[in-house]
């Protein structure tokens, strides 16, 4: 997409190389650095990159912060693989643009016209729509809303975004993990810009996250009971208890015990469980895939 991305590169760039640079003493030092960055920039043809945006609905911005929690990895992503074309605070673009991948943060408030319109617009303008984080995928804590809150007492109906639009892929958990969104971004790049072999890898990697989007938009620690233990599949590895962001799960005699008063319905435990899904075609190649992702981020 050449020429369609009015970005402000220099803002982000100096930080990427700052560790090596001496602290700026006078303003002219800084200006010199920026010029060097701009020259490097032109070596990478922008057309190869994919475009990613983040649509912020009823969420706490934790998902957006998670994207930034990749630290230097975020700069690498933006340098080589993706242009960030839409995101609260990070990008100075007011209206939802066309994009390859749209990460939607937050659930959708049905009582808020703008949210509904923007979500539909994002769906229409993106190739891959991702429910990014527990709220977008499953409602998460917004499931507990009953309205009456300042300063919008009339806002009470919050739904996972798949109630309003079709969703292609889920990244559950609250907050999601920086490494997971990084992996999805790299795989999306391979899927849209890679050779056949890379496309196959990316498809295999992304498939379970796409199947998760087909599975439904209700999540709870109870999923471990219904779809793992009750199905005779639990072997007590402890992953669910280890992954729960609110420590709602403890292991009692080798099986998860869910404190449903603490559960925020983020979907992390079930998605992380090795018995919710386990794709041998990807997992058996874990060493190569991790090397490839690490290599891509060098």
């Amino acid at each position, binding site marked *: 997409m050449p020429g369609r991305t009015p970005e402000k590169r220099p803002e982000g760039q100096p930080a990427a190389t700052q560790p090596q640079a001496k602290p700026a003493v006078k303003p002219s030092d800084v200006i010199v650095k920026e010029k060097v960055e701009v020259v490097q920039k032109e070596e990478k043809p922008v057309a190869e990159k994919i475009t990613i945006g983040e649509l912020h609905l009823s969420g706490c911005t934790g998902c957006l912060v998670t994207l930034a929690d990749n630290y230097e990895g975020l700069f690498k992503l933006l340098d080589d693989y993706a242009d960030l074309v839409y995101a609260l605070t990070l990008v100075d673009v007011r209206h939802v643009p066309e994009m390859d991948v749209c990460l939607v943060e937050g659930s959708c408030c049905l009582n808020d016209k703008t949210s509904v319109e923007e979500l539909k617009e994002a769906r229409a303008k993106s190739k891959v729509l991702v429910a990014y984080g527990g709220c977008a995928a499953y409602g998460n804590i917004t499931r507990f809303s009953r309205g009456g809150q300042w300063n919008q007492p009339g806002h009470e109906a919050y739904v996972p975004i798949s109630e309003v639009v079709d969703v292609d892929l889920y990244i559950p958990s609250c907050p999601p*993990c920086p490494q997971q969104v990084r*992996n999805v971004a790299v795989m999306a790049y391979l899927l849209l810009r890679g050779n056949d072999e890379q496309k196959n890898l990316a498809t295999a990697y992304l498939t379970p996250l796409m199947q998760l989007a087909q599975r439904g938009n209700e999540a709870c620690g109870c999923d471990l009971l219904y779809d793992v233990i009750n199905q005779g*599949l639990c072997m007590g590895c402890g992953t669910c208890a*280890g*992954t729960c962001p609110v420590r709602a799960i403890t292991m009692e005699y080798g099986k998860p015990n869910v404190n449903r008063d603490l559960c925020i319905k983020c979907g992390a435990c079930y998605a992380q469980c*090795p018995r919710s899904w386990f794709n041998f075609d990807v997992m058996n190649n874990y060493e190569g895939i991790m090397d490839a992702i690490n290599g891509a981020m060098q």
Partner: protein
Amino acid sequence: MDVLGNYKSVISARSTDKDITKKSQDGGIITTLFAYALEEGIIDGAIVAGPGDEPWKPEPVVATTKAELLAAAGTRYTISPNLNLIKEATRSYGLDRVGIVGTPCQMQAVRKAQLYPIGMRDVDDKIALALGIFCMENLSYQALEAIVEDHCNQKMESVKKMDIGKGKFTVYTERGAVSQMPLKLLSKYVQPGCNVCLDYVANLADISSGSVGSPDGWSTVFVRSMKGNAVWDGAIAADLFETKPMDQVKPGLDLVTKLATEKITKNQKNVDARKTFGLKADGTAKGLRNPYETP
């Protein structure tokens, strides 16, 4: 894929550390490797099955000293949810390089947590050494109690060692009594989740180890990943293990292959049987959920 998974080398080995072999189940491979990795700074701590609040009930702990490793040495034939501590180890304990030991399914969970870190924030690059143990099946604590107390007629707290081998489940007590139960009786106690497991020798571990294939007091060791290879070479260079080539020990690799094939064939049948487990109104089969196909 081959039932034994990908591996760079397989060898029969025994620890040269007498403190460890006194307490270990077989060759003391896992304890010795973790002690070596701690000493060398390859790991800052290891998640192991430490002592729990009831006899023979393990509790996952983060071991950072050899004494803590020794307290966790030996096999407890019940569940230790070691993955419970994997994020905790990198956050509350602040470890940058984590070691973890586990059954084949737990090694699968480790790799899933690394490739798909959905709720496992900042864990993927901190798994420095994942050691797997051979596993045919596992038992709930209550099942283990039933076997030891009902079948073998021994009190849990008086047991010094439990062992599985040569078709028997054997219990050795502190006062020297030996009680046995034929392994055939074990099947009804196996936790159901084990019946769909398609891995016997921890194919996804960096190094995996177990007694099968090697003589008494020795262990069979598969070195699988680049990481595992580096650690194993270092431990051998440091003279921490006596070794024998697999083709010179009895019963040898054939037995490992035989048991792995048996387990995977049986459990693949179980996975397939789940597809036609029930009955729909139109007379066609109604299936149970298959974790290897969709979530």
